[in-house]
C-alpha cells in the first residue's frame, strides 16, 4: 500500500518537476553559464568585472535598493498596525479590501500611466494641494524618485496588507483574551503577544514585497528618470540584453540581481528566527 502510493506520488510529480527543471532551473543555469562566458564561448569573469568597474552600472544596485528597501519597509510597517486594527473586521471591510486589491490587479503599467496625469503638475492631487494651501506651487510627483516610490508603494502596500490580514486573522483570539485577563493593556498585548506571533508573517510579507519592488521596471521607466537617477538594475539588465544584444553581460546582471535578492531574504529570515521561537503557540485554536 505504502509503496504503491509512493510510486503514484512520483508519477504525479513528474509534470511539475519537468516544468521547474525546464522553465526555471535550466534557464537559470543557462544564465549562470552565459554570465561566465564571453561571446566566443570562452570562460571568463569579465562580465562581472565589467559590471563592477562600470560606475554607471554599479550604481544601479544602490539606486534599486534605495527604492526597494524604504518602500518595502514603509509598506510593511504601515500594513502591520492597519491589519491589526482590522483583525476582527471593521464596517465596510469588503469595500476596503476591494479598493486595496484594485491596484494589485491592474498592475504597475496602468497605475504608472494614471499617476502621470493624476499626480502631474496640473493633476487633481496638485490642485487639491494648492487649494488647501499646503504648498505655493505644484509639487513634483512624476519623473523623479517620489514618483517611482509612490507607484511601487501603491502595489506593495495592499499586497502586504492583505497578506498580513490573512495571517493575523488566523491567530487564535483566545491568546489575546488571555493576555487581557492577565492584566495587559492594548499596547502590551500587541507588543508582547500578537507582534511576536506575527513575525513569521511579517518576514514573508517583507520578502515577497521586496522581490516585487526590487525588480521594479515599468514604474522606473514611466515615472522616474530612467537614464539617470532612477536607472534601476532590472533596466540595466534589459538594456544590455535587448538594446546592446550583449546577453553575456545581461546574464551577469541577472545573476547579481538574484544574489542580492537572496542575500536580503537570508537576512530577513535570520531576523525572523531570532525573533520568533515558539512555532507551536500559533496553535490551530
Amino acid at each position, binding site marked *: 500500500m505504502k509503496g504503491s*502510493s509512493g510510486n503514484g506520488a512520483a508519477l504525479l*510529480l513528474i*509534470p511539475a*518537476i519537468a*516544468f*521547474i527543471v525546464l*522553465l*526555471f532551473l535550466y*534557464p*537559470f543555469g*543557462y*544564465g549562470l553559464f552565459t554570465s561566465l562566458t564571453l561571446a566566443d564561448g570562452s570562460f571568463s569573469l569579465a562580465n562581472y568585472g565589467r559590471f563592477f568597474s562600470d560606475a554607471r552600472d554599479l550604481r544601479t544596485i544602490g539606486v534599486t535598493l534605495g527604492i526597494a528597501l524604504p518602500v518595502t519597509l514603509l509598506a510593511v510597517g*504601515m500594513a502591520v498596525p492597519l491589519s491589526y*486594527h*482590522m483583525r476582527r473586521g*471593521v464596517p465596510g471591510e469588503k469595500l476596503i*479590501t*476591494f*479598493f486595496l*486589491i*484594485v491596484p*494589485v*490587479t*491592474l*498592475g*504597475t*503599467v*496602468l497605475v504608472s*500611466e*494614471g499617476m*502621470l*496625469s*493624476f499626480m502631474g503638475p*496640473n*493633476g*487633481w*492631487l496638485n490642485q487639491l494641494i494648492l487649494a488647501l494651501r499646503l504648498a505655493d506651487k505644484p509639487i513634483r510627483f512624476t519623473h523623479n524618485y517620489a514618483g517611482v516610490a509612490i507607484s511601487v508603494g501603491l502595489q506593495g502596500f495592499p*499586497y502586504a496588507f492583505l497578506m498580513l490580514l*490573512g*495571517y493575523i486573522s488566523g491567530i487564535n483570539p483566545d491568546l489575546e483574551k488571555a493576555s487581557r485577563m492577565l492584566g495587559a493593556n*492594548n499596547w502590551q498585548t500587541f507588543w508582547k503577544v500578537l507582534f511576536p506571533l506575527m513575525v513569521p*508573517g511579517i518576514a*514573508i510579507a517583507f520578502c*515577497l514585497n521586496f*522581490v516585487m519592488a*526590487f*525588480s521594479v*521596471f*515599468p514604474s522606473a*521607466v*514611466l515615472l522616474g528618470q530612467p537614464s539617470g537617477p532612477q536607472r534601476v538594475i532590472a533596466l540595466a539588465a*534589459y538594456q544590455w540584453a*535587448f538594446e546592446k544584444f550583449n546577453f553575456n553581460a*545581461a*546574464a551577469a546582471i*541577472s*545573476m547579481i*540581481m*538574484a544574489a542580492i*535578492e537572496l542575500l536580503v531574504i537570508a537576512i530577513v529570515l535570520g531576523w525572523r528566527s531570532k525573533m520568533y521561537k515558539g512555532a507551536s503557540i500559533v496553535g490551530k485554536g
Partner: protein
Amino acid sequence: MRFRPRFGNALFMLAIAAFVFVVLGILLTVVLNSLSKGWYSGLLPKTLTTEWYKYASEDHDVPQLIGVTFVAAIADVLIGLLIAFPAAYALARSEFRGKSLLLSLFLLPMIVPPMAYGIPLAMLCYKLRLAGRIMGTIVVNLVPIVPFMILVLMPFIEQVGTNLESAAKMLGARRGTIFRRILIPLTTPGILTAGILSLVKSISMFELSYLVVGGRNQTIVVALFSDAYAAGARPPQAVDALAVVYFLIAMTCLLISLRFVSPTQMVFKLK
C-alpha cells in the same frame, strides 16, 4: 482608555481614505483624460470626445490585442492546472523523503525577481524561436503561475478526507477513475479558486511577457507600456484610451472573480 481605540479608528480611516482617494483619482483621471480634449487645467475637462478611442483603434489592432491577452491567459490557466493539480495532490497526500525540499524548489520562482530568471528564459525563447509568438508569452508566464496554483490547491486537497478515495479503491476503482469521479468533483472549489485567481493575475502580467514580445502577438498590457514609454509618438489621451480598454477588461475579470474568491486570496496565502 476609551480614547485610544477611537484615535486608532480615526487614523485607520484616514489612511484608508487617502489610499482610496489616490486609487480613485488615478482611475478617474485616466478615464476622463481619454474622453477629453484640451484638458490642461481645471477640475474637469471642458469638451468631451470619443475621438481618442478611434485613434487608438486605428493605431492598434485592439481585437487582436484582446484576443492574444485572453488566449495566453486561458492557456496558462489550463496548462498550469494540468501541472499543478497532480503535484499539489501528491504533496498534500503523501509523505516522502525530500518532500519539503521539493516544495521549496517549487516555490523558488516566487522569491527570485522575475527579471533575474526572465532574461535567461527569454534568451532561450529567442533561441527556440518561441519569442514573438503567443507560445512564448504562454511559456514564460507559466513560471510564476504554477507555484501559485500549487500553493492555492494544496489546502483544498488536504481538506478532502481520504475515506472516499479508500472506499473507491477497495471497490476496485482505478487511479484515473478516482481522480475523475471523486477527487476532481470534490476539489472543484479549489480548482475554481486557483483558476480564477491565476486568470486575473495572467491578464496583468507584464515583465515576463515584455521580454519575449514581438510583432502582432503582444498582450494588451505590453502594448500599453510601449505606448506610454514612447510618449510623444502619440497623444497622451490616445494612450489613456488604450489604458481604459485594458482597465475595463481587468476590472471585469476582477469583479467576476470576486463573486468566487475574497481579495485576501489574491495574494499569497501565508501559513
